[in-house]
């Protein structure tokens, strides 16, 4: 089954069974225009990810020391 088909399959199940939530976000895929939009979206998402990694990676990772829990 292709991804789109499976998404549809899940969506159908959701529509049939769901009363918790119906507005499931679906990615836009399809014609060339969409692809261009998709690339722009991806670029701005990657920019956002850059922002959440603003501190020094090495220092940040090394500072993550907890005591073991349960």
């Amino acid at each position, binding site marked *: 089954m292709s991804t789109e088909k499976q998404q549809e399959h*899940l969506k159908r199940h*959701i529509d*049939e069974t769901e009363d918790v939530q119906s507005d499931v976000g*679906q990615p836009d895929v399809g014609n060339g225009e969409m692809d261009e939009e998709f690339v722009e979206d991806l670029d701005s998402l*990657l920019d956002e990810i850059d922002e959440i990694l603003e501190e020094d990676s090495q220092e940040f990772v090394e500072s993550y020391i907890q005591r073991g829990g349960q």
Partner: protein
Amino acid sequence: MKRRIYGLETEFGIIWTPDGPRKKTLTVQNVVMYLFREIVAGRMYPDVFLENGARFYQDIGCHPEYATPECDDVAELVAHDKAGERIITRLASTAERRMKNDGFYGKISIFKNNLDTPGNTYGCHENYLMERHVDFRQLASQLIPFFVTRQVFAGAGKIKPSHRGYYAISQRAEHIREEISIGTTTARGIINTRDEPHADREKYRRLHVIVGDSNMSEFSTFLKVGTTGIILRMIEDNFIQQRFALRNPVKAIREISDDITCKHQIELQNGKRLSAVDLQWQYLECAKRYLEQAESDPTTAQIMARWEYVLTCLETDPMQLERELDWVIKWKWLQTYLAKRGYDWDSPQVKHLDLKYHNVRQEESLYYTLERRAEVERIVRDTQIRHAEHFPPEKTRAKFRGKFIKKVNEGKILCGVNWSYIQLYEPYQILYLSTDPFKPEFDEASRTIYSI
């Protein structure tokens, strides 16, 4: 299906990142004290019940821990689990302001994962109230293969150095050392035998599950708890006839975790070899037969539909679940980011981004960046989560506890509260026991307390 009480306990990890000219450092212990300061007011220990019926306290190893109130619906449980993240986020903002006033400038990061950098582990524990009549050995033998294999949809994903295979499905798998054990801090077992039902012990036992990962994805949490609930119901009704006994469950749980193609076959006691997905299919088929003759309900139907969808995808290509499952979502975005920015897999940026996936403070979180951009599937709405931050579930004992807490907080009345009792000190001197968690009100207590 018959109602069941569910609960989730999450231990959070903490980093304090000092800022400003003097970069004053603080121990995790100190940061946690600041976190609790707003809500412990006047109490001896950092251990409180909240107006939504949940418990928030400091657990072993200095971890702040959030235990959801008793829920009798899995979607409701997802909302309450997420509410815990929002509550600790708010406490962190308040704590940062207080710290600033005390001269400590910086940022608190809060992680919902199961591993720190050196490899210490802490947990997300699931709790299921079960019927006492079930034979424990039988319960364990039917559950072990299920718990070993459900990580293919419940795992949170773990970074490994490139020479050790890049990525694993589960964070906890490597820390599981026994099949059955009472320990939660050493010699952790696939089945944990802690049994504190906080309810009538003759009727109920509590299944305390420590083998799972902490999930960011609502979809993963929903499926993890939902499928487990269905399996338990079949065991209680003595419906599962097949035997899936594994040759070496502790070895199997690691092997499955180490193979992100989900094709690896583990050995059964009868010599046959099956993949985790094959085994899950067998449990699913069994559940379908069970539900032909048992009463279903909307939530159970949603769980079944998603379970089948996930197994269908896992069988062909797990990467199709890049919107649903934590371990796949994280793998996809780690790879995409690295490829676009030209980082090497063993670079600190990968570990950094991995950690940030699990940050519950939304503006600093990879998971929440993806959620904001509708890159992940949801189970509940934000309005449901906001509601759960302040209001207890309507149909369990938590309802009364929540209302009670609100009342005593407003009136500054001294009391003692636990899962199964409420105690009013001077001048009332009353103790109310509630051994039935399915009952939202206890009449006598309600009358007295609402009249105060």
